[in-house]
């Protein structure tokens, strides 16, 4: 696995040389600061609406960064034929998949830290508090969620023809899970058989990305979540990440390179 780290560092360097992150960060900062400049009833301590908006922008931005950065990794290597000299070295296809995943995931982590630092500063200017445990839990779980999304995009880049279609499909699937994933069981119970069993099976099979969304708890200043729940969610993310990486590896293993 010595080859994994050099591949991952190349991916991280590629991300910070591209403009995606900077553009999204500046947009997030601009919109948040613009909304922060609006005062309601001459009260400059109102914070929650601003926190909610900022976190929404962070979620959208990091999802876009993760999906677009990952979706083009393997197709670009094949298109530019750089995959051939890469695999001519003592590097297995599994190491390429893991290296690409690790690079994208680490790059997302760096982006997340910058975004949360900004969020923390904005929040502290209004609330004069640094709930570091809450921030850490929210950041970590969002990073875990991004691990699933990155692995899903990597698997998708070997299944779908073009990076654009892969990115669109993964973005739609992730958004759908985030919006309705939690409610699929409720919907299933209202359906007749066999649709009920099918939808319930889908509910259990889907990676529940909404589990990692602590935005409401953060916005409304709830207490940190229980550490056992945090650890269990981390394991849950790890399991789904490996499932998608396995799918990617199985798909990449016998695929012709050109």
């Amino acid at each position, binding site marked *: 696995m010595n080859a994994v780290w050099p591949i991952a560092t190349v991916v991280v360097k590629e991300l910070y040389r591209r403009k995606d992150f900077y553009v999204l960060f500046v947009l997030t900062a601009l919109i948040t600061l613009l909304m922060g400049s609006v005062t*309601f*009833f*001459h*009260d400059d*301590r*109102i*914070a*929650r*609406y601003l926190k909610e908006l900022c976190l929404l922008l962070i979620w959208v931005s990091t999802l876009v960064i993760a999906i677009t950065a990952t979706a083009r990794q393997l197709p670009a290597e094949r298109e530019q034929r750089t995959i051939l000299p890469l695999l001519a070295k003592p590097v297995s296809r599994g190491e390429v998949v893991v290296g690409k995943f690790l690079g994208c995931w680490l790059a997302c982590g760096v982006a997340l830290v910058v975004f949360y630092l900004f969020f923390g500063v904005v929040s502290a200017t209004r609330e004069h508090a640094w709930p570091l445990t809450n921030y850490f839990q929210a950041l970590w*779980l969002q990073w875990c969620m991004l691990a699933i999304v990155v692995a899903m995009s990597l698997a998708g880049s070997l299944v779908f023809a073009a990076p654009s279609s892969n990115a669109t499909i993964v973005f739609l699937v992730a958004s759908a899970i985030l919006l*309705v994933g*939690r*409610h699929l*069981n*409720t*919907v299933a*119970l209202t359906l007749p058989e066999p649709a009920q069993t099918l939808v319930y099976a889908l*509910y*259990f099979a889907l990676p*529940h990305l*909404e*589990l*990692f*969304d*602590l935005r*409401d*708890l953060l*916005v*409304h*200043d*709830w*207490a940190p*979540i*229980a550490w056992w*729940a945090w650890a*269990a*969610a981390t394991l849950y993310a790890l399991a789904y990440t490996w499932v998608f990486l396995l799918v990617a590896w199985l798909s990449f293993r016998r695929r012709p390179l050109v």
Partner: protein
Amino acid sequence: MPSPYLVLVFLLTVCVSLATWLQPHYLAWGGSRTGDGGLLATLLGESRRLFAAQFFFKADAYFHSGFYPTIFDNQIVEKELHMSEESEAARTPRPPEAEARTTQWSPGEDYGFLGSPKDWLDRFSRNFFPSRHTHLEQKSEAREILPWLRLSTWLDPHRVESYTVAAFWLRTRLGRPELAAQLLHEGWRANPDSYEILLALGRIDEENRHDPVRAHNLYALALRKWHRQQDGNAEPDLYTYRELLGHLVLVDEKQGDWAEAVQYLTLLKKISPNPAAIQRQIDEARAKLTPAPGPAPGPP
């Protein structure tokens, strides 16, 4: 060939003449949006009312610290949102343990609209979002619902409830009755027939400015407007009617106008769920109305 400057001046003259002729037509045209309420109305059209309603519900979600049903959850059919109820009725103190915040599920807990967990994943997922019913209790937290209510008034200036609820929170929790009065005056300009706004303005004069005369005038005007709009309705707004009569009785008592207080109490008795108590109040007021017999004049 005439001079190009001359042509230019001629064209400019034609433009100004046309503009002066068209402007009154445009202003009189029914499709003109110049008087509809500015940029938001032009951009969003009628959909702004939907957004205003959405923001009003968002304020209620903030009032519950994020614990709020989605379209998939069991919708508890309530006539009033809790946030509005608090603004209208005297609040019943809740036991402090009911407000203790925890995101961790525990057996025997009140699940509210969520119902009991349907499966292990549902039970587990409740650790990651607000899953306990709480209300904003601290004064400093109450301000958090205000941006959504303000946005609601901007988007739909005819949504009276947004003004009255925002004014209640400004007046009672944040101790800013003057700002509340400003907001209500803005709402009154947009809704000149609203008796609810007049009632809220009257309460500021009565309870914060301690001006019972002005409060009485506002309540009396509100009562006239109430009768104009609600008389003949199959389901009149009796809640506000009761409130208005109750406050009129209070300010009459403060001013010592017992005769008028008896009149309002008589009206209140007809719709009160507890007419016996109102009758006792009427008797007390009548006793004050009749001058007590003075000491017998002594011999000169």
